[in-house]
């Protein structure tokens, strides 16, 4: 046969080659069509939610940067565990601490404590005074003021030790004081500091009693000093986002808010170590217990009370001022709930029968008839089942901390209610599925850190250890100190100013009063009295 007879055969073969070579390309086409359909569906879902949820997509207002305008000298009264953390927030850590955390970071690259501290902004201040009734702590405070391993390099001054807080307040070179004593000293020192014209950062709970709350409020208002209460949650980005969502009415009418504390370790129940150097020579016990209602002589019991003061009403208010106050303030930040009309609480010492008189299981109810709202608080120090906090609306529930947040720390998730009115149509059309969150906020989900201990996780879940600014991890305590110092400089109101601090103090005092008396306590805002 000639060449011409082969032609059709060759064409056939080429066609077969082409078909076999491209045989699976249509599958790729089917894939792409389905991918496109899936992406459009996801986009429609997202657009539908995001257009509602995130009207303001802005990050929290950029942190003011006015640290350079005026150098401030600060003093610290009470340089214990919390005091040292606050002073670190201002940029001063002991040599022992910087050595330990830099070594930790070297051994475990996931440990970012040192990096977070060193990348803090230099707040243009000096730690010039330290007052503590325990010599060891006072010396540590001075050591921190001199340590050159800090953001901003060499410190400009070295702190002076003051035996009594009044001497520190009398010093002319101090502009502002951080008060991190036990709660029974807060009001006296805050009032005296205000009278001396010193600006005050006071650790929470603001006061031990209701009367003290009134006195501190009046003193701060009268003197016009800048007062910041130590609720660093005010700086947490997640709370700002939560506020945007709640304020936009996306949860619908909110009638119930549940907040919880769940801890299960001796440390979490304030059974802290007794310092081996703690004795009658190194501790000024009489000064320590001066404002407390019940006095005891120095001895073994006093040592226990000195290092574990949170376990006694003589010095603090137990779960109320210590842990409820954090969650209350976060809810107040998100929802502006203010002081309740009624409070009642119950509880007991059910697990830690170690001589303490503050309950380790404590539940409190707060009624806001004007806002059609009940706030429930439930705390256990013998179970760390992470119940988290829930803002329960008719249309959606916001779950914060605990098991929410897509598995990451301190996020929150909003899930629509299957019987929601606002989302009725979207629920019906399947755009919203009540079994899955319609919005999750988990900042830093790509950032991995080595927060591992149960207690750090407790605080991290509540956003109290770290927050994120533009995706970068920051210690909210640092931001809170910065907010206070900047407000001193420009005369603005800090985020946890005396007005919201007063809400916290009165609310805590109402619940404590109810626990003592066994009856419902009412707030009379006109006469500023508890009934």
């Amino acid at each position, binding site marked *: 046969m000639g060449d011409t007879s082969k032609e059709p055969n060759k064409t056939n*073969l080429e066609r077969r*080659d082409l078909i*076999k*070579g*491209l*045989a*699976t*390309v249509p*599958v*790729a086409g089917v*894939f792409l069509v389905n*991918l496109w359909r899936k*992406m459009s569906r996801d986009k429609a879902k997202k657009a539908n939610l995001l257009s509602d949820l995130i009207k303001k997509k802005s990050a929290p207002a950029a942190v003011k940067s006015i640290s350079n305008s005026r150098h401030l000298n600060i003093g610290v009264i009470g340089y214990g565990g919390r005091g040292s953390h606050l002073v670190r927030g201002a940029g001063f850590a002991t040599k022992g601490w910087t050595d330990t955390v830099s070594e930790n970071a070297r051994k*475990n*690259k*996931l440990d970012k404590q040192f990096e977070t501290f060193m990348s803090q902004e230099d707040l243009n201040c000096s730690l010039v005074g330290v007052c503590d009734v325990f010599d060891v702590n006072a010396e540590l405070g001075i050591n921190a003021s001199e340590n050159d391993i800090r953001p901003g390099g060499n410190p400009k001054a070295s702190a002076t030790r003051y035996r009594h807080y009044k001497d520190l307040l009398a010093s002319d070179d101090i502009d502002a004081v951080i008060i991190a004593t036990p709660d029974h000293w807060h009001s006296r020192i805050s009032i005296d500091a205000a009278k001396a014209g010193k600006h005050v950062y006071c650790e929470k709970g603001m006061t031990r009693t209701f009367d003290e709350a009134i006195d501190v409020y009046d003193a701060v208002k009268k003197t016009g000093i800048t007062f910041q209460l130590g609720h660093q949650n005010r700086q947490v980005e997640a709370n700002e986002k939560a506020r945007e969502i709640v304020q936009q009415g996306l949860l619908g009418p909110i009638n119930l808010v549940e907040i919880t504390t769940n801890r299960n370790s001796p440390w979490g129940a304030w059974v802290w170590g007794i310092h081996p150097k703690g004795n009658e020579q190194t501790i000024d016990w009489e000064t320590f217990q001066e404002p407390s209602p019940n006095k005891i002589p120095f001895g073994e019991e006093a040592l226990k009370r000195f290092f574990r003061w949170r376990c006694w009403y003589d010095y603090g208010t137990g779960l109320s001022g210590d842990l409820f106050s954090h969650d209350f303030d976060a809810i107040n930040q998100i929802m502006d709930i203010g002081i309740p009309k009624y409070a009642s609480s119950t509880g007991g010492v059910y697990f830690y029968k170690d001589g303490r008189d503050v309950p380790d299981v404590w539940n409190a109810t707060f009624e806001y008839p004007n806002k059609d709202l009940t706030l429930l608080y439930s705390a256990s120090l013998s179970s760390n089942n992470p119940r988290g906090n829930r803002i329960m609306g008719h249309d959606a529930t916001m779950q914060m901390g605990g098991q929410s947040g897509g*598995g990451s720390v301190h996020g929150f998730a909003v899930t629509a209610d299957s019987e929601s009115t606002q989302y009725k149509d979207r629920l019906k059309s399947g755009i919203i599925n009540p079994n899955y969150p319609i919005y999750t906020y*988990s900042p830093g*989900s*790509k950032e*991995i850190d080595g927060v591992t201990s149960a207690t750090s996780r407790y605080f991290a879940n509540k956003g109290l250890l770290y927050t994120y600014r533009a995706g970068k991890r920051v210690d909210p305590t640092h931001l809170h100190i910065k907010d206070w110092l900047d407000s001193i400089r420009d005369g603005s109101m800090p985020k946890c100013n005396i007005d919201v601090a007063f809400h916290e103090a009165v609310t805590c005092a109402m619940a404590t009063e109810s626990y003592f008396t066994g009856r419902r306590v009412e707030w009379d805002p006109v006469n500023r009295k508890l009934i």
Partner: protein
Amino acid sequence: MSSLDISIKENKYQLYGLVVLRVLIGWHFLYEGIAKLINPYWSSAAYLLDSKWIFSGLAKSIVANPTLLTISDYTNMWGLTLVGCSLLLGLFSRYGSLVGMALVLSYYLFAPPLLGLEYGKPNEGSYLIVNKNLIEACALWVVYVFPTSNIIGLDRFFSNQEKH
């Protein structure tokens, strides 16, 4: 390239079975890759942090080092996507199946369901020593040793011996 036994080539059921296996694995890889590429929050960190057994130390060092983590993320996102395209379209499928096998075997080795190893992330099924990653790795081994892309797939255009 080695080629299929003539018996398999001539047995359409065996040949098509192998092609379908290759294409389905390709589809799975491609979507796994694209799903990660289009999710700005995806990172291999969560998987690595939950790693157990002999590679858990390596996994933690990867997470601790931002550069290594970024490399790991990109290797996974693009590796899965490219392997997916390769298997689906039958383009360089032998290399695709080898790379795919390496990827999926590493997922197995970083978190094997061995006795006594507990994972934070709940499983979607029940596994004892053998899990779907191991099976998919073996399936890719089959795809590798029974190459079909030079008969059905774009590789056909680069291979003369398989024509006719």
